[in-house]
């Protein structure tokens, strides 16, 4: 279990934590990269949106693995959010029309195999990301 303060520097520690878990589980490098990207984006969203205007926020990350997948659970106490309600990202229009930002959840959806979200009964959010190894 990794405990992080909700600060801009924290996603890098989250990535390093996931990398260690992937190495222990023997996950291939490409799958590990995708999972790190998803965890980075999830943490960045929690920091930017979940804890916006609040100090002292925390993020807890846990990793579990079986023979062919790694499961990362991210728990925060920030504002509740519902990933299913987020609009689809624009990834096709030309450079003039392409909006700045709004790609974080798109990258999460693209880079993991399963996403489970539930609001935490104690307040906050519990997000589970599953990546299956390609080995």
């Amino acid at each position, binding site marked *: 279990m990794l405990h992080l303060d909700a600060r801009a520097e924290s996603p*890098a520690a989250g*990535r390093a934590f996931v990398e260690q878990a992937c190495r222990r589980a023997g996950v291939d490098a490409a799958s590990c990269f995708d999972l790190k*990207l998803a965890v*980075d984006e999830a943490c960045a969203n929690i920091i*930017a949106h979940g804890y916006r205007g609040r100090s002292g926020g925390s993020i807890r990350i846990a990793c579990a693995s079986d023979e062919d997948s790694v499961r990362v659970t991210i728990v925060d106490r920030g504002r509740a959010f519902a990933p299913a309600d987020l609009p689809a990202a624009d*990834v096709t229009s030309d*450079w003039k029309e392409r909006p700045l930002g709004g*790609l974080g959840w*798109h*990258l999460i959806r693209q880079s993991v195999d399963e996403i489970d979200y539930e609001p935490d009964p104690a307040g906050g959010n519990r997000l589970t990301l599953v990546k299956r190894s390609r080995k």
Partner: protein
Amino acid sequence: MTEIRTEVVDRGHVTVLRVVGSVDGATAPALVAAFRGAVAEGRIRIVGDFSGVDYTSSAGLRALLETVKETRQRGGDLRLASVQPDVRRVLDLAGFTGILKLYGDVEEAVASFPETPA
């Protein structure tokens, strides 16, 4: 803690911005500042040398798209050279390879800009 370093190299009519490090929410502001600084100096034909960039999150994509818009609106462009496979993966996932011009190395990217821009 991750950091990035940026270095501007003048190549005549083209500016090469060499970037080294991992680009995420913590480090992207330094990349944004470097790109904005170059554009503010009138450097609108920019090659981003990404040979030393091992990672980018959406924060880096935002910096790239902002610079593409700023340079192209002024008649220039931002083009990337030596993009590493992991970073290329993020560009692909985000649909950025359809709007950004990528080159195998810096020389090729510099040569892609005409000597006498319109």
